[in-house]
């Protein structure tokens, strides 16, 4: 094992990464080297979306990205969405709409929904389903999650301030 040292910019702060091996995934670097445990690993092959983060504004499965390749890029994780105890509009809608059961998929889904609503203010039902189809939830059957997304979209479109949450 090498002691490669590189620096990642995560949620606006620089983190020196030691003891990482060169091919280590961004997910493992975030969780095991930097200690940000909010991103979850459930399949480690890009199928479930539980590890979704933003890298330079692009939603990615952090299990498929090498940590060392994300140097000099702005990484936003679930911890960077909103301060602890002050949920974003998307996060609060998930809680209120019953979109959370076991919650393991939730951080990844929150990242994906913020990303979707940044790009598409008023997504159709089909757009929501297609955009979020890379995030698997085994508990909810998705109905309450779609409800949460629609609630936020409606609230944001009637609120010109654009809501509290901003994951970009």
């Amino acid at each position, binding site marked *: 094992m090498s002691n490669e040292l590189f620096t990642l910019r995560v949620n606006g702060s620089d983190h020196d990464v030691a003891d990482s091996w060169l091919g280590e995934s961004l997910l493992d670097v975030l969780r095991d080297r930097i200690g940000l445990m909010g991103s979850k690993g459930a399949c480690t092959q890009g199928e479930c979306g539980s590890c979704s983060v933003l890298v330079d504004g692009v939603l990615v499965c952090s299990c498929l990205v090498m940590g060392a390749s994300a140097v000099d890029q702005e990484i936003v994780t679930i911890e960077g969405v909103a301060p602890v105890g002050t949920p974003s509009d998307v996060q609060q809608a998930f809680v209120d709409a019953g979109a959370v059961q076991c919650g393991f998929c939730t*951080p990844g889904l929150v990242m994906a929904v913020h990303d979707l609503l940044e790009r598409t203010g008023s997504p159709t039902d089909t757009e929501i389903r297609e955009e979020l189809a890379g995030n698997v939830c085994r508990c909810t059957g998705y109905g309450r999650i779609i409800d949460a997304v629609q609630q936020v979209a409606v609230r944001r479109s009637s609120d010109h301030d654009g809501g509290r949450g901003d994951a970009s």
Partner: protein
Amino acid sequence: MTVIEEPRTTIRSGTIGDSPVRPDGVAKVQGTYAFSSDLHADGCLFGATLRSPHPHARIVAIDLSAAWKLNGVEAVITAEDVPGQLTYGLIAQDQPVFAVDVVRYVGEPIAAVAAIDPETARRALDAIEVTYEVLTPLLDPEAAIAGGHDPIHPDGNLIRHQHIVHGDPSATGAVVVEGTYEIGMQDQAFLGLEAAIAYPDPGADGVELHVATQWLHEDQKQIAACLGFADEKVRMVLGGVGGAFGAREDISLQVHTCLLALRLARPVRMAYSRAESFLGHVHRHPATIWMRHHADADGRLVNVEARFVFDGGAYASTSSAVLVNGITMAQGPYACPNGMVDGYAARTNHLPCGAMRGFGAVQACFAYESQMDKLAAACGVEPAEIRLRNAMKTGDTLFTGQPVLNVAPVEDCIRETMALPLPDEPVGGTPLSDGSQDAMKLPGGAGRTADAGDIVRGIGWGVSIKNLMYSENFDDYSTARCRLADGVATLKFATAEVGQGFITIAAQIARSILGVDEVELDQIDTHIGSAGSTSASRQTWMSGGAVDAACRAARERLFEAVGTAHGIEPIRLMIEGTDVIDTAGDLRIPVVEASSGLTIDETIEYHHPPTEDLDENGQGNCHTAFAFVAHRAVVDVDPELGLVKVVQIATAQDVGNALNPLSVVGQIEGGIAQGLGLAVMEEIIQIDGVIRNGNFTDYLLPTFLDMPPVLATLIEQPDPHAPLGAKGVGEPPCISSTPAVVAAIRDALRQAGIDAPLDRVPVRPADICL
């Protein structure tokens, strides 16, 4: 026996009937909630498990020397290092902690290591040399039952046989329909992978294990036996559970983690990968079910004959209970005077099978509902009508001779489902605004392979019965403690919160009973009596019953204190809102004030009435209670390509009393997704005993695009036998949704002039178009 006292319109916030938010909700959406896979301790070591690559082999030699020589490897252990019982199991203790002399399935643990980091642990596994003498695997459950094959386990190749005879099994009717049905092996596929951390006590004479599980006390008992400890030397704390669905009822990494930690006197963490998870937990039993239904010319059931074969895989787990659930539900939610059922659970060298949501009732339902459709066609009546004609009612008798004493609104479930609107989307989906076809609405979706002109729509029905709680003379009690002081209720229980939301309704119950607003939930661990398992749709009834009873006991103490202070008989007092009031006077005191300075502390064990074992003819009151549900599926099918798009599922479910309607809807939608998965995509494939798709690329799970809108009606008829009038709601949604989807596919194909039997789930494209 209580039902809610208030009509819905006047529900106080956060009490029974309201849908308050989950107490863990904000932590979960912000990523700060600690799942068991997020747990870490300073100085902890990392464990890993060596598993068999063969479905059946004799272990000739195990050479650990190269593993020990690796830098950073701290422990390498095998069966020789197990100080207590060498085997474990929920019903029969037939599964080795580590294989002894022989391996019986691909993935069976042989050794475990602990190292300074996961990579070193993995390299240590590679360095262990095992010499095998490969044996011919027993893979055919019929061969296991027939008895000609050498035993692959000292307990034999037949895990259980049970026979049921009811009424006149030779009775016949004007109409006879017959079929043989197969159900594939489904995986629970919870997202939060198995993980645990064990902290050894100083002196290594005890251990504390933090783990995601469904039943802390059963784990404790099995772990302690293997460690050679008294139960109390193993303290269990619930780690955050990322879904369960039955897969966490059995031991997986618990004993291994504790053994390593005790050996090294250091904390040890173990965590499975997805590939290891597919090997490391039990699955839904594959089954083959033959049924012959006899009915009169009007389609009224006269007799049901059935033969069930469940493939239990290498170890018993809960196979005997899954078998009994399956065979005792053979008639479905229908009255029938005569029946004869034979059921077998066989041992093979396949992956071990055990609990998954629906637990035997899923397999039975696919068979009996397929039969009901055949019967409807033979009698020339509509699928819903044949079910209405036979719908079970309270007081009807099962083939076991057990009367159904619960509320049994089968007819209501069917009629309320019929009343839900069919989708207004045209076949193939609503076109886009430019008039072109929306490919995402077509079977095949983003593959854009379907031609809209080929699509046919079908409608199908499924109705089911599910037993609630444990059966066959098992006392699956639950324990809860309620402390009340200064207007704050503190609840303690060992009930595993796996995502279903028990912690939400526990607080609702306390607010309703005690008139408090503030409820604190103590850590979920073994520092209180057992709550039983979070399975069998039982926790709302059982742990809900225990919390209800503990809160009522605390309320009695409160009333005694208020009565003494004010010279009032306690029986005159009641809770109204957040006040204690005198029903025969003017006294009104806020609970906050009335409980000020008091120390009220009540612990109650809630037991359901005892059940009976089945006799040799399968007779006995073996089940505790029953719940019912109806599903109607609408699908669009491309018969040329064999592709299916589920367009809508409508359902009406017998819930008794919805304590938290939003949570009930969540259970309904989530359960239907798993039923849809079994219908059209989910199956663990094993070839020659080797799993071929143990990953999420090849084991397909329903996504946002696969799940249709769900229309749900809650049939709220409070059950007088349930402590809060509420029935468990977790399992029914995934039971009859599967046959409803398959029936809808058959219906669509009939309209295309194709008569496909579709007698196997999951339905594969080739089953439709070849």
